[in-house]
């Protein structure tokens, strides 16, 4: 092995190791991702109290049983339309502990203002 080849290996070594670690972390995170189904209908979400763990990524699979709905959780910066007949997905990782509301942000009728739920993050 020439001196140049040896130098290249020394330089590339940490990079390869770093990429490997990143890949492992990514796979690990993917494996830990929780999937929770949330069903919307006028004028509630089921479940309405969603238990989450801080730092554990979550995917919400949102469906609507009747009309076009919205799902908005401002504390975690996620929102989505929920179109009847399709599954909408939002991904986030709770980064704080507490109780945080979510709500429908597409006006859907006389109970629209009461169409809310909470994330309980521990």
């Amino acid at each position, binding site marked *: 092995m020439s001196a140049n080849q040896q130098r290249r290996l020394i330089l590339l070594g940490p990079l390869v190791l770093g990429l490997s670690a990143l890949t492992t972390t990514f796979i690990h995170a993917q494996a830990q991702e929780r999937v929770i189904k949330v069903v919307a209908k006028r004028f509630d979400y089921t479940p309405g109290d969603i238990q989450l763990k801080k730092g554990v990524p979550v995917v919400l699979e949102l469906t609507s049983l009747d009309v*076009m709905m*919205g799902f*908005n959780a*401002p*504390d975690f910066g996620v929102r989505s*339309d929920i179109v009847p007949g399709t599954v909408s997905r939002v991904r986030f990782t709770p980064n704080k502990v507490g*109780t*945080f*509301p979510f*709500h429908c*942000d*597409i*006006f*859907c*009728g*006389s109970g*629209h*203002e*009461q169409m*809310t739920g*909470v994330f309980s993050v521990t």
Partner: protein
Amino acid sequence: MSNSINRRDFMKLAGLGGAVFVSGLTGWSIAAQQAGAHDFYFVQLSDSHWGFEGPPNPDARGTLPKAVAAVNSLNVLPDFIVFTGDLTHTTDDPQERRKRLSEFKQIVGKLKVPNVHFMPGEHDASLDHGAAFQEFFGKTHYTFNHKGMHFIVLDNVSDPAGRIGDEQLAWLAADLKQQPQDARIVVFTHRPLFDLYPQWDWATRDGAQAVDLLMPHSNVTVFYGHIHQENHHMTGHIAHHSAKSLIYPLPAPGSQPKRAPVPWDPAHPYRGLGFREVDAEKANAEYKITEFPVRGQQS
């Protein structure tokens, strides 16, 4: 000032204890110097939710007529009246929606002031994109001028997602281009244009774009409804003032887990309900907001 006398008369006639000075605005000294600028005031009413029935207001069918009677009690009428949305309470039934709009129109038709401006709230317009509202009250966004001032009515409710929308924003931009930088501009809208409390959907999804368009103008004020209480907020030099409702008050933003109506208090009926007078006085360049409660007896 004659307006001050009128206001005292108004309070006396309406059986009110007093007015609360809320805030002032800039720009009125410029207004006073411009040709066509005169003292005047207007009245803002909001969120009457005609058709609502429930414990938060046992006199739901009586509150709006009482407000109409109180405004009619003025010795000298305001130059105009503006209703900032949620004239009616929502219903899934298109016929019932039209019935409520018709009844509302009939009640406010008793106002002695002929110059009345309307805009929808989400309860009026979001389920049919404003179709029924337009049958009764015409356009949902428009402008008008009055005594040297430019008024802009923005619709952030006909889209059920609470957006102004690109088309209306382009219309707003084109309108503002016609206005001098120091034009006295008042915006009327239903939902807050800024993120007052997004957790309760007290925001307009693209409201920041409207505020950005308004920002280069030095004398802009926004009056809105939707949140059923007074709130005063600044985005830069632009003041935003929300109005009380004529049906039930809502809690202060984030003060409790849910945005449920404040319960009716039999010991203090109509508490938290009301309307406001907004007046300009040329002599001292003052712009005042005076809040009035709803009283129990209709005059």
